[in-house]
């Protein structure tokens, strides 16, 4: 029994679970992105491997694993090998303090849906993300290739510059919640959408939310700030010289960072796993309804298939959705499934924003990038922080 209670054991289990889930998510996130962009651009997207290309990620993984892993000559070997490892580690590190939901009861053990809660969790994430620069910078420098070097330079400069507005934007909601622990941060936002920091008095943090998102795009080297890997200028930026699994780890690191910042945004501004309105007003039914609608739609389309194979796949999806909808009604699981649902929903929404932007916006020019953060974003964040702190001090005194 004390084995089950022992901190290390539980942590190990959690780590395993979270790692498994995360890896799958990473793989599928990329599929989702391809799908989304495809539909934005009116293409079907991956379609061949499995129904609606559902097995595409699996195929990709196999491909990347089996590819030849070549190390070009003239690279600085140790650093060249260290770089992707570093990037991946730092990306995964921050996940460990992110809470996905409240305390739950698994058999005899009561535990939190979170690896561990630091009372300086936010600082921890900042630290991890600030360390993330090294991966890219070193990759750029070590592969001894001018495009890669330029990419590395760009990314390090860009990440340093965008860290300031990001930190300032993070500081503002922290002032309102008055804690650095992510868990308490969420708990201060309980009870309805108007307690979320994005709308929370004394000063709704909409501005800092926007600033945070922009900075997040830059931090994760996503469009429109993806200069470090600008395909049409520098072949593939910092990971030009990387192949197979090393390349994949950069890739996964990028998506892991996306997830991290989306989760951060959810926790900081969107009230984490808290429902937008109380259960009394039926917030607990939302997921059921959604999945039910999804299932019904799928069945409908299955009845009128566009292509032959849909006759099979769509009804299957429909049934699965309906089952899930049912599951959400079971009071046994509701206690932990609902928060998880809300958390995932919010994070997913933000991730969708990432993809949407990628599908629509063009890329910045480098000087525009720098001028934007230093001349606009930074002052705005600073001003917002000043106003917030003033109002907080005003209202608490």
């Amino acid at each position, binding site marked *: 029994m004390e084995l089950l209670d022992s901190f290390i054991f539980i942590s190990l289990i959690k780590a395993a679970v979270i790692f498994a889930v995360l890896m799958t998510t990473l793989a599928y996130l990329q599929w989702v992105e391809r799908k989304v962009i495809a539909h934005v651009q009116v293409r079907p997207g991956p379609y061949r491997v499995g129904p609606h290309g559902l097995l595409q990620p699996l195929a990709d993984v196999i491909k990347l694993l089996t590819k030849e892993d070549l190390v070009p000559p003239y690279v600085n070997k140790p*650093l060249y090998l260290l770089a992707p490892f570093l990037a991946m580690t730092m990306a995964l590190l921050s996940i460990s303090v992110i809470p996905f939901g409240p305390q739950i009861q698994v058999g005899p053990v009561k535990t939190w849906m979170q690896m561990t809660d630091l009372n300086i969790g936010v*600082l921890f994430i900042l630290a991890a993300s*600030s360390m993330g620069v090294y991966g890219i*910078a070193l990759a750029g420098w070590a592969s001894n290739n001018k495009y890669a*070097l330029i990419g590395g*330079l760009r990314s*390090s400069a860009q990440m340093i510059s965008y860290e300031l507005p990001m930190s300032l934007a993070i500081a503002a909601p922290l002032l309102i919640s008055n804690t*650095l622990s992510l868990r308490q941060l969420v708990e201060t936002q309980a009870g309805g959408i108007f307690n979320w920091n994005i709308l929370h008095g004394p000063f709704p943090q909409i501005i800092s939310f926007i600033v945070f998102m922009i900075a997040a795009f830059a931090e994760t080297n996503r469009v429109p700030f993806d200069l470090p890997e600008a395909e049409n200028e520098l072949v593939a930026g910092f990971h030009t010289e990387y192949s197979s699994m090393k390349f994949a780890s950069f890739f996964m690191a990028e998506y892991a960072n996306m997830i991290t910042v989306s989760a951060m945004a959810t926790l900081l501004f969107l009230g984490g796993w808290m429902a937008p309105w109380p259960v009394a007003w039926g917030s607990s039914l939302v997921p059921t309804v959604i999945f039910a609608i999804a299932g019904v739609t799928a069945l409908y389309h299955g009845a009128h298939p566009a292509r032959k194979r849909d006759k099979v796949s769509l009804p299957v999806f429909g049934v699965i959705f309906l089952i899930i909808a049912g599951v959400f009604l079971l009071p046994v699981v509701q206690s932990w499934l609902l928060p998880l649902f809300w958390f995932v929903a919010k994070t997913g929404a933000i991730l969708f924003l990432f993809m949407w932007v990628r599908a629509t916006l063009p890329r910045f020019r480098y000087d525009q990038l720098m001028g934007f953060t230093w001349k606009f974003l930074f002052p705005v964040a600073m001003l917002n922080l000043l106003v917030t702190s003033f109002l907080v001090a005003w209202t608490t005194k």
Partner: protein
Amino acid sequence: MDVILFLIFAVVAVVCAINVVVQTHPISSALSLVGVMGSLAVLYLLLGAEFIAAAQVIVYAGAIMVLFVFVIMLLNAGAETKKGRSYLIPGAPLLIVFLGLMAFFVQRIFPDNTMVRFGGFTGGGPKEIGTALFTTYLLPFEVTSILILVAIIGAIVLARKEIE
């Protein structure tokens, strides 16, 4: 437990520090220095200085050292050239004497009766730091902020291209 942690990270720190000195290539030295800082951060946590540990990683490892790496890349600095006289002759003995004296004093002045336990001191959280920073140490704080401002301006003035 504490001892093991301390030993691990102390060893890491020392090794990295030696690496800083012996590596001929600035990038390697820089990364080793990052290693030193990381392990120091852990030691800070051991000493109950959570905030400082975080600041150590964010500011030192995350900002300052990135700046170093950035500059090294920018100047594309190669391994250093062996020329000019070496200061090994006067330096090394002096250094050894220095270190020996230091160790001697430490052993002499700080007897082993004060032990460091994890959680032995919990005054290093953000709250305490902030309180002290904005009450007792307000003036130094302001002064340092001015200093930072001056430094930023100076850096810009120094590094910008002269526009004719």
